């Protein structure tokens, strides 16, 4: 503690003998990390650039040239003419509906499994955990036929039901640890006060879990927003398509207009990027907690 220089030097040395070699090693580590960061961001920066150019600028100028007069009209054009506004609204409401349902239903069952006493609770928990290993593709054909029979093909309800079911296990998994850790006194006090289970759950337990609920909600939002195969299989009319499939169809029709394609892609990823900007800690926490879903 006597010398101000000694401690950072030792930190950098990382076990190697001399301070100078340690410093160079430390700098090398930084260069590696920065290089990885550049690789991760570079394609997205390029996407932003060409979303603001017209074809002539994309083809004739160097790929990394800044869009000198940014063509924001690309965004306006695809928003209304490309049906992107409809897809966007569908993505928003389907994502919110499925997320809200998942979080509430998962909370109910997690409460019953962790806090209430009944036979078969560990078996039911096992069912949810095993469901995580099942590939969605292996359920696709029967789901299609079931929804077809129930007249739910080309109906957003089919999407919401599948999203809720397939995100249920991961949501329960993130909630579990939190529910196990709730102090026993919570129930004891409320039972003594003559509180019903419903009241206890909705008035006391649910508010206590609000922070982990926010984490599960944001993870659900990301998965639902990005879902592709169910929309692609169950939904055929434009009025119900979400952004993933809508973007895919739009780009299929306008393969040559790079600015329009870039703008469409930017619109589809922007909400997630914005959410990440403000909620990155929660997202990191949620992904680490629910790392079973790859």
């Amino acid at each position: 503690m006597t010398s101000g220089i000694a401690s950072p030097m030792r930190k950098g040395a990382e076990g190697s003998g001399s301070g100078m070699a340690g410093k160079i090693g430390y700098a090398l580590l930084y260069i590696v990390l920065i290089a990885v960061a550049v690789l991760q961001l570079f394609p997205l920066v390029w996407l932003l650039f060409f979303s603001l150019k017209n074809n002539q600028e994309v083809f004739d100028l160097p790929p990394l040239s800044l869009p000198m007069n940014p063509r924001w009209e690309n965004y306006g054009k695809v928003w209304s003419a490309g049906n992107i506004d409809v897809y966007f609204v569908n993505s928003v409401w389907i994502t919110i509906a499925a997320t809200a349902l998942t979080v509430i239903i998962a909370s109910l069952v997690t409460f019953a499994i962790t806090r209430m006493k009944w036979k078969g609770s560990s078996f039911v928990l096992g069912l949810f955990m095993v469901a995580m290993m099942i590939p969605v593709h292996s359920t696709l054909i029967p789901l299609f036929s079931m929804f077809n029979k129930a007249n739910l093909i080309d109906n957003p309800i089919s999407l919401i039901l599948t999203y809720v079911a397939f995100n249920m296990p991961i949501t329960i998994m993130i909630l579990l640890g939190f529910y196990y850790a709730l102090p026993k006194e919570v129930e004891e006090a409320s039972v003594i006060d003559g509180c019903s289970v419903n009241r206890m759950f909705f008035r006391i337990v649910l508010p206590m879990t609000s922070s982990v609920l926010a984490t599960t909600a944001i993870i659900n939002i990301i998965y639902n927003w990005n879902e592709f195969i169910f929309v692609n299989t169950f939904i055929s009319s434009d009025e119900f398509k979400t952004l993933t499939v809508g973007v895919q169809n739009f780009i299929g029709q306008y393969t040559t207009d790079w600015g329009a394609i870039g703008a469409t892609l930017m619109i589809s990823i922007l909400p997630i990027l914005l959410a990440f900007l403000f909620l990155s800690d929660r997202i990191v926490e949620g992904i680490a907690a629910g790392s079973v879903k790859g």
Partner: protein
Amino acid sequence: MNKVMSNKKIIALYVLPALLLILAVVYIPIILTGYYGLTKWNGIGSPDYIGFDNYAALLKDTAFWNSAWHSLLLALFSGLSLILYLAIAMVLASKIKGANLFRKIYLIPMLLSSVAIAQLWLRIYHPTNGILNSLLESIGFDNPPAWLAEPKLVLFALFIPILWQYAGFYILIYYAALKNIPASLEEAAKIDGANALQIAWKIKLPLAMEVIKVTIVLAVVGSLKYFDLIYVMTNGGPNGASEVMASYMYSEAFKSYDFGYGSAVGFFLLVFCLVATWLIRKLTATKDTIQYS
């Protein structure tokens, strides 16, 4: 207290919505996939039971085994890429300032939809206007390949965006595991004269082993079911050179309207995933697990 907390009506009310949903949307379809695999069915009429004909045909179907081989190759690549991710996480966990910011930046691609990533990388690989070939030409490579149109290159070209997409995810998991290792162990090893490499190899790696095993299962099983990215970028082409199990199933069912055969492929996919999970767990099982402290 116990009486209140074991009220059967309440328990049923709380459990049934989730339970019925998971049974109806996950478990019943899985059983039906097994059954439909035994039928001839175009998806519209009623399925005709034909016994194991689909599976017999599947065993002789070179297109299917090609797709299974491609899935296995991707699984192998993904497994190997974990070494790279682990190395980066080790660097990140070695008292780096701004480590938190780095791991957040790395995570960004993982949050985006596979469709958006696929469309973006289609532009990156574009033969004439894509940034990859523009850069290659500018540093003197004439006639760079059309990456996604070359049967020999396409699978590798598809793996790059996958590598890019999942990097942040695995680095995040490894970073958390490495940060969990008590600093006292590292200090003790340093006092005993161990260098950074020895500490990484002899102390950090064994202590992170449990997490590494989980990630191997995740990476391998995850790649066995790759679909979105490949479906959008190449749709299995050129000429089946990038067909994987899930995309083969999808095209058999929803393009050729052979739902019975598609179901057989879907059932195989499920079996592959379960067997892979079991096999990796078995191969990586250790008798004594190491305690942290």
